[in-house]
């Protein structure tokens, strides 16, 4: 009859992990017994330590957002920049331009004689470039089938949850100017 080793006191050494009695265990296990309860304790403690480090990483992430926000505020208002001649964009067509920085790609769409809408081309889901679909009154993101309303930039379909960054426009004389940006929820 085999007996399963049991712990008689809370701090007893080493119950073999397969639960078999000691005389059925290989010789090396009897020569070098492992203190399994202590091993478990150390494993849990180290996992807790790892989680506390993860917690610290989250704090670093939060501080990074604070710094980015501070930098964004310090930048101030974006410059006023000429986009194109107002009549250079035909009704129902669009034009790509850079604003406020050279790496910020934006698109302006003309929907009527005096109606222009401009947005940053980055989709608010995963930053793919949105494509104007004037016939359907929307911007379409081909990556994950997201859609934004052309007139407002708010998401109407697909995974995006935030509106496109709007570029504020002004017509001065014959020219179209970008005068600012508007980030929205």
């Amino acid at each position, binding site marked *: 009859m085999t007996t399963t080793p049991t712990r008689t006191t809370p701090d007893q050494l080493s119950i073999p992990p397969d639960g078999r009695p000691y005389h059925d265990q290989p010789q090396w296990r009897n020569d070098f017994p492992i203190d399994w309860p202590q091993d478990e304790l150390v494993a849990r*403690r180290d996992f807790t330590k790892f*989680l506390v480090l993860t*917690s610290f990483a989250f704090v670093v992430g939060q501080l990074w957002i604070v710094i980015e926000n501070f930098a964004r505020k310090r930048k101030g208002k974006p410059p006023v920049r000429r986009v194109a001649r107002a009549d250079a964009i035909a009704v129902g067509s669009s034009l790509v331009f850079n604003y406020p920085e050279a790496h910020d790609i934006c698109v302006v769409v003309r929907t009527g004689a005096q109606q222009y809408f401009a947005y940053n081309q980055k989709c608010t889901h995963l930053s793919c470039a949105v494509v104007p679909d004037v016939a359907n009154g929307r911007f379409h993101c081909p990556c994950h089938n997201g859609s934004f309303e052309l007139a407002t930039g708010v998401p109407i379909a697909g995974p995006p949850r935030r509106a496109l960054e709007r570029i504020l426009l002004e017509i001065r004389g014959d020219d179209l100017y970008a005068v600012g940006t508007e980030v929205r929820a």
Partner: protein
Amino acid sequence: MKRAVSRQQKMTIVFGILSIVVIIAVLQLWLLTATMNAFLAGQERVIIPAAVASLICFAFNAGLLSYIYRLERRQ
């Protein structure tokens, strides 16, 4: 004088602390994603309170970890 703690009791305490730390870490993850979303949407009001809350959570977690080490030193 502090009472001696058996290894089984220590194990129970460590499990309890581990559970609390897991819950707080998940809370911090949620806080980070919510703050990032607010930052990208231009809502600045929540950023600093969220950072402070996350820092408090971390301090609490670190306190619990230090308690585990103090507990291990106790015979």
